[in-house]
């Protein structure tokens, strides 16, 4: 079980994504939804990017984990598992300082296709990886 599942919610990744991918214009939905969406404590979030539908991706500087959330429901789950974390303010071997959705920002139809639309830019490793 992921740390996020333990600490934030029992919402499944599939549930987050299916909520985000319901056909509706994000412009209309942005007015709804919570004003604050909690991320995992200790994750040192840094980058955020719009994903398909009403989803977003957020990266953790602490361990390189990438979260997927939904602005309408406020649900968040772990999309990419991070590495082991070091001391709080140390740069992790893998970190996620930047995050982007794919330019092909059409909605995926399943968690599998959506995973391919997140891009993580790491810090010291100087790597960009697509998921």
């Amino acid at each position, binding site marked *: 079980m992921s740390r996020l599942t333990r600490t934030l919610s029992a919402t499944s990744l599939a549930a987050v994504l299916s909520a985000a991918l319901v056909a509706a214009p994000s412009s209309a939905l942005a007015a709804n*939804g*919570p*004003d604050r*969406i*909690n991320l995992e404590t200790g994750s040192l*979030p840094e980058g*955020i990017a*719009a994903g398909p539908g009403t989803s*977003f991706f957020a990266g953790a500087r602490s361990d390189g984990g990438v979260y997927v959330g939904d602005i309408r429901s406020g649900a968040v789950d772990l999309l990419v598992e991070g590495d082991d974390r070091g001391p709080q303010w140390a740069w992790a071997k893998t970190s996620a300082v930047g995050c982007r959705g794919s330019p092909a920002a059409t909605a995926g139809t399943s968690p599998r296709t959506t995973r391919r639309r997140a891009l993580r830019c790491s810090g010291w490793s100087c790597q960009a990886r697509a998921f």
Partner: protein
Amino acid sequence: MVVPGAGFLNDVAIARKAVYVTDSFGDALTVVALDGAGRPVGEASPLTLVGDYKQPGGFGANGIRELPGGDLVLVSGGVLVLRLHRDQARTIGVLSDEELDRPTTGALIGSALYVVNGRFDTLASQPDAQVHVTKLRLR
């Protein structure tokens, strides 16, 4: 492409006609013009930040995004809306929320900007403090 005098190039916004890059240790953005096919044209040039932007002693400008009308939004301690004019980027508005504490970057989704509220100042004394994404309405 080399950016002369850059300190810490941090984030990038890719707009239709140009690319804008933040420098966390400088009081200017870097702009690179794009041609119709999205290819860089010419050299990188500075856009001085004027208005409400104040370069701190340490880390400053962080995230940047383009708004639909062509203005930019800069996440830098606060969240500033910038309008471009010649070689300057002037603050024309501030997006605020009482809970913002060292926001880092933002994503435009519909009519709102969703910013990562990094809470670096709070985390220094409360490592387990809740971190979150905060919605800032654009209109």
